């Protein structure tokens, strides 16, 4: 997958958004090239949606600025609106209207000429296999069907940049796969630039050319998934996965105290430990045993984006996943790519 053409589609200059005393987006400077799929990765509340709201002119920045396709998001908001499409986390659809009526309404709001619009509606409905359901009301659709319409709704205006806020949230595995295919197709076949927010590591890894890791309103790292993952290894750090039997809740904290451990994050029975170098592996195991933990499995793994996040923020993304249980379990099955490198016991 070739990254973008080199022409910037989005450039932000220390863009910020403050709500009273809470800073949702804190001096973010990113650039996204034309034809790129860019992922904004971070837990809920990290500032992903606020950043997108500003870039789509729905919200005014309180500091800094940004350009979309060369247009200033505040001064040239009308031009920006012509360029961008939005797939929001809350689906933009009227339940009482049919799929076609919804799409037509938005086509009209973008002043797409009638004949062109009708042809495009047929085309888009065909792409997502919804032709058969085109004249049914949205309220009768399943979540997966709704999301397909929600995605093509953003394409009615032929945007050159599409923002997708959690596009696979709450979908079944098949719909998830279909939406991901569609996202790739849009970029590959039509050259549409796509900015995607997700808190699903695998999704970002699979789809994105480049990723910006966002935490507490700040971009803490930005690169291709490969380089991000390699980056934390090159510095010599290694990821150790420990499966423990009935560990205490502070197991992670206690492992962090061991010399040579950079960070440790616990999710139920599993503790991920990032160590300075491979020598630390022995120390971690000894430390665990000394603490009285019963080890069921220990492995050194290739770093995942999750580890990248842990490395840069010192926290696990899973900590926050508890807030949205519906999205954590269903539909996001990990790719088979990340296998443990070495196995002990």
């Amino acid at each position: 997958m070739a990254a973008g053409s080199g022409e910037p589609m989005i450039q932000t200059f220390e863009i910020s958004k403050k709500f009273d005393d809470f800073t949702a987006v804190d001096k973010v400077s990113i650039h996204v090239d034309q034809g790129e799929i860019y992922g904004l990765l971070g837990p809920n509340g990290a500032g992903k949606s606020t950043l997108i709201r500003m870039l789509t002119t729905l919200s005014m920045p309180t500091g800094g600025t940004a350009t979309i396709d060369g247009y200033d998001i505040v001064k040239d908001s009308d031009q920006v609106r012509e360029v961008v499409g939005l797939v929001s986390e809350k689906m933009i659809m009227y339940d009482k209207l049919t799929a076609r009526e919804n799409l037509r309404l938005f086509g009209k709001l973008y002043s797409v000429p009638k004949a062109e619009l009708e042809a495009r509606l047929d085309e888009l409905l065909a792409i997502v296999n919804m032709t058969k359901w085109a004249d049914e009301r949205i309220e009768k659709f399943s979540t997966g069907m709704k999301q397909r319409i929600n995605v093509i709704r953003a394409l009615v205006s032929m945007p050159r940049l599409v923002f997708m806020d959690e596009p696979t949230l709450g979908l079944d595995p098949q719909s998830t796969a279909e939406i991901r295919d569609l996202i790739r197709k849009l970029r590959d076949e039509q050259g549409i630039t796509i900015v995607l927010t997700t808190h699903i590591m695998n999704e970002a890894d699979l789809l994105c050319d480049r990723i910006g890791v966002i935490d507490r309103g700040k971009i803490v790292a930005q690169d291709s998934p490969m380089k991000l993952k390699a980056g934390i290894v090159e510095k010599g750090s290694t990821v150790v996965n420990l499966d423990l039997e009935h560990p205490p809740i502070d197991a992670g904290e206690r492992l962090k105290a061991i010399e040579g451990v950079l960070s440790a994050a616990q999710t139920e029975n599993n503790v991920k430990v990032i160590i300075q170098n491979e020598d630390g592996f022995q120390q971690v195991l000894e430390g665990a045993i000394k603490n009285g933990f019963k080890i069921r499995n220990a492995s050194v793994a290739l770093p995942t984006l999750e580890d990248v996040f842990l490395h840069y923020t010192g926290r696990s993304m899973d900590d926050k996943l508890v807030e949205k249980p519906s999205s954590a379990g269903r539909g996001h099955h990990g790719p088979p790519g990340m296998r443990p490198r070495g196995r002990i016991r």
Partner: protein
Amino acid sequence: MIAMTDEKGNEAIEGTVEAPTTKKVPPNPRAARKAGPVNIRKTLSHSLWIAHKDLLEFSRNRVMLVMLFVFPLLMMVMTGYIFPSGNNVKDMPVAIVNLDNYNNTGHAGPESLMVYSGVKMANDHSHFFILKNISSESDAKDEIKHGNEMGALIIASNFTNNIKTYGQGSVTVLYDQSNPTISAEITAILDQIVTQIATQRAVMAVNHTTGFSINISKAIVTPYTIQNKGTVPGNPSYFQFLAPGMMMMVVMMGAMSGLPRAIAYEKDTGTLDGVLVAPTSRFSIILGKVIAQTVRAVIQGFVVLLLAVVLFGVTIHGSLLLVVIMLLIGTFSFIGLGIMITSVASDESTASTFMMVLQFPMLFLSGVLFPIQQMPWYMQAVAKVMPLTYAAQAMRKIITLGAGIQDIMTELVILIVFGVVLMAISIPLFKKAMTK
């Protein structure tokens, strides 16, 4: 950069020298089509599509369609029947106490018996009261206190004797202070009956003493005749008063609450973002919503009118076209308030609270349910700053009195001024609220 100058004429001069932005690729060809008159057409087209969408949603919402009929029906039935309106009062328990002691015989004399039987006869015909004989004034008071009787008619002990000696006979009406409305009814009816009996008694006396015929005697006793006549045929009825005001009230509620509710709902569900992110002016959005609400308000107004005519016997004396015009102008005068609430309230529940605070006083003080002339002066002053007062008044003139447009000019001008002022305040507020 030629395309830039096409888009925004006023930026042409600066734009020709150097591009105001870092833009290098030619802009979207669709953007270039935005020139002056096209912009107006576009705004209008966008707003009509938004209105179309809103009405489509409304027509497919079964609950809303049913409520369109149920709400006005409930309001009419409730307000129409809970307030006493004179001809509805029947069978009120009233005591009658004849204390007349003719020449100390311990019996009632002929004069008091005449009053007594006169009241009974009048009541046999009209059934205003259920009359009960009670022997003493204190017993009558007790009965009222216990709630068994609602009033009493007391004929004084020297009634016949006084009249026989060319004095006046005295009749007292006791009433129940805890129930002022009913008391007022009872005293008024009894007063009327006793006056009638007294007149008959006087006619007979004149006839007896002068020998004139009954008719001449009657002319001497009551030299004037009074006739009550309306400007249009038919008897005055409370529904005839209520229905026009109710129409305007339903329109007001629709205009004021429908708009904030529609926008707050779209905000909550997220669909508003889709509209805001499109290159559609804020004005098209509000205009589209206003058009949809207006169409809805006119339909609602006619539902009220239809119910009033079919179920409550209201007659329309004015022109239907004028009714429509009045509905439209009424909506126009209220819609600014709706836009204002929309801009100030961030979510649906805040919007509802605002509406309650604004609508309740209007409902009771605008003369929809009771005439404002019944209120004390300071309340009348409050009523006079409410657009609903004028809207209801004008609609009543059209429907009940058959007024033409020249008869309601004052109200129309006031309503239009209300509308213009409120719009001028609310539209900038709305635009600001939408780009937070």
